[in-house]
């Protein structure tokens, strides 16, 4: 569909303007990232004296040594994050694509019903407390690794995107001919449909991977066992703690509260850098599937 029709041409001036705009946005995204990296490579005492700089002051890798020497807890959290991301992404892609595929099939009798079920819960949700009660008292997810995976496995929004993508890019006749050639339903789906819709799957996989990787909310709600904390949540806790202790310092009065040693500024940034690491590399991996964006109706997905 990469047609060079004149309809899609824009004037040089407009193009320049757009380019400038996108460069500005790009910088706005990259500069903070750069600042985090440079602070993580700075010497703490120097930061205290001179404030934040865009170039590392008193170059040192101490903070990384400190974070990595924290040993088990950090590596454990890293492991949890990676495991949950991989397993969660695979499960999410599988379930979303299966659900979307049957909704795409016009000869499926209960198509309307299942579209409605998904769509209804997407628009109207019961709120936090019922969600928590279902997770804890009905599904008994508390303090299990499933708590970090299952709640995000099914996402109606992804289903709708994927279904739209299927109906745009997968002609019914392919299914018909597969049937005539004697393929069963599962053969059709796994051997014929899946290879044809890789870009769609890649998109969903990227969405899911980023969701799982960046999630601190699920451990926050459902995990009380330190061994199951993921990396993002560990960072979130440190951040919360620093804020909170500053906030309540005056209120505690004579309680004689002694805040434990908090990680230094550069150590926190080092944690952030380590936390970004692998997921940044995930994007180029998926990039090749995004030659032609996905659309939901007329909207880019």
């Amino acid at each position, binding site marked *: 569909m990469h047609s060079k029709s004149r309809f899609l041409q824009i004037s040089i001036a407009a193009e320049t303007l757009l380019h400038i705009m996108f460069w500005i946005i790009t910088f706005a995204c990259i500069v903070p990232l750069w600042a985090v990296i440079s602070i993580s490579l700075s010497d703490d005492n120097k930061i205290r004296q001179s404030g934040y700089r865009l170039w590392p002051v008193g170059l040192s890798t101490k903070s990384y040594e400190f974070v990595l020497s924290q040993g088990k807890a950090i590596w454990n959290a890293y492991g949890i994050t990676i495991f949950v991301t991989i397993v969660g992404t695979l499960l999410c892609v599988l379930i979303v694509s299966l659900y979307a595929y049957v909704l795409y099939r016009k000869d499926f009798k209960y198509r309307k019903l299942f579209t409605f079920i998904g769509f209804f819960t997407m628009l109207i949700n019961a709120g936090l*407390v019922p969600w928590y009660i279902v997770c*804890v008292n*009905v599904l008994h997810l508390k303090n299990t690794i499933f708590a970090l995976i*299952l709640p995000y496995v099914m996402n109606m929004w992804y289903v709708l995107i994927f279904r739209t993508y299927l109906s745009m890019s997968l002609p019914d006749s392919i299914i018909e001919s597969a049937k005539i050639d004697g393929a069963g339903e599962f053969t059709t789906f796994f051997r014929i449909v899946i290879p044809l819709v890789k870009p769609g799957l890649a998109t969903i996989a990227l969405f899911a991977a980023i969701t799982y990787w960046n999630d601190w909310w699920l451990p926050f*709600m459902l995990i009380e066992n330190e061994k199951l904390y993921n990396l993002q949540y560990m960072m979130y806790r440190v951040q919360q*703690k620093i804020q*909170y202790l500053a906030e309540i310092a005056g*209120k505690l009065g004579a309680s004689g509260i002694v805040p434990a040693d908090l990680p230094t500024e550069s150590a926190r940034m080092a944690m952030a850098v380590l936390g970004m690491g692998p997921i940044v590399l995930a994007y180029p991996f998926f990039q090749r599937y995004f030659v032609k964006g996905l659309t939901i109706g007329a909207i880019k997905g």
Partner: protein
Amino acid sequence: MKLKKFFVVMLVVAFVLTSVIGVVTGFGASSSKLPYVKLTWYVIGTPQKDWDLINQKVNEYIKPKLNAEIKMTMFDWGEYNDKLQTKIAAGEPFDICFTAIWTNNYRTNVAKGAFLPLNKPGNDLLSKYAPKTKKLLGDDFINGASINGILYAIPANKEKAHNWGFIVRMDLVKKYKLDDMFKKVKKLEDLEPYLKVIKQKEPGIYPLGAYAGESPRFLLDWDKVVDDDVPVSLYPNNNSTKIVNELEQPNTKALFKTVRKYYLAGYIRKDASSVTDWMSDLKAGKVFVMPQSLKPGKDAEMSISTGYQWKQIDITPPVMSTRECIGSMQAINAKSKNPERALMFLELFNTDKYLNNLVNFGIEGQHYVFKDKAKGIIAPGPKAKDYSPGLGWMFGNQFINYIYENEDPNKWKNFEEYNKKALPLLSLGFNFDDSKVKTQVAACKSVWKQYIPMLETGSVDPDKYIPEAIEKFKRAGVDIIIKEAQKQYDDFLKKTGRKK
């Protein structure tokens, strides 16, 4: 046709399966037929490596005594409040939790009906299951922690009062021979000559610590009626029962003027009004004198936590206010399945020396070692870093705690004297109900954020900014709050029979 049917069945099975997975991973229903019970307890603090080991030891000790085991869980400072609020909202049947005025808010939870009333007339659980604890705390303290005359949580037995003053860096005092400070300094103004010396001789040090939220302002020791950041207060003595706007009082103005003078003289950090993390300045050795909330041995505690030697100068007299009473408590969940057993556990925990110190200091020979067993003086053991929560003020009863060797061996005796000396305020146990003035309170809080940090650090001229702040507070409705508070307070005084 068959195929279709098969698929419908498959789909239904898929839906059911997703809900079954969870159930399989969960636990079966717990049987409550056994006389043995399992309790749960949530506390706040920095999670400790050997926490589970200590928990196991606690269980070994309490099982023969109470036929119960307890699962102790510690949440980090920043997450405790949110975690507990979720649990309470979801109606989880845990048994005991830490509560205070500053986290997992005691008053709010009581208003929600989240905590079990402990001494309701006709159902006085406290006298029945925790008589020793009741005696330890004393009536004043129990009154102070009660809401409308009923106690909903057990306060920790610790210092029952507070006073304000300064802590001073001893290495600098010795270096410049400033020892007469401890005799001469009776108020903020008396600090001047000493600050001057430090300013001249130690250019890298802030002579006086004043920060946003921790500053000399506290020397006025207002008895706050509403919240820390709302200027509606009582004078901290029993001479008057009139609730005032503290900014309109002459002593406030005088104090802010002194702070301003010090700021202009360069005794205070230039950007103080935007800095809240005073602890890191103390640890970095950048402060000479710091205003602090005091109790006996506060200086020793600060020395341990900052790595510098401090000595305290008491300025205000000790008073017992509602804040001390509800600063650190253990509540029993209203939805608890075994409230009596939970209370029995707390009773044991508050009175049993071994159990209390086990949770506070860990295992002898590992986390601490005895220096003098008879007196209960200890030193950190070889594995101290795996278990040293340092939460004596939370865990029960400080008077049976061991003492580190670098602390004053008479610490607990001093505490008792201090508690005896303290003046119980008339407002003990008065809890302001702000439901009618929520908007005004919120508005006042934002005015406070705007003005007070600048005034308390001396960053701006009080002559110009105090009137401006008062004006803004008035517009935010501070007078409406004062009126409402006065009405409630008068009712309270009448009900409790406390005279003016």
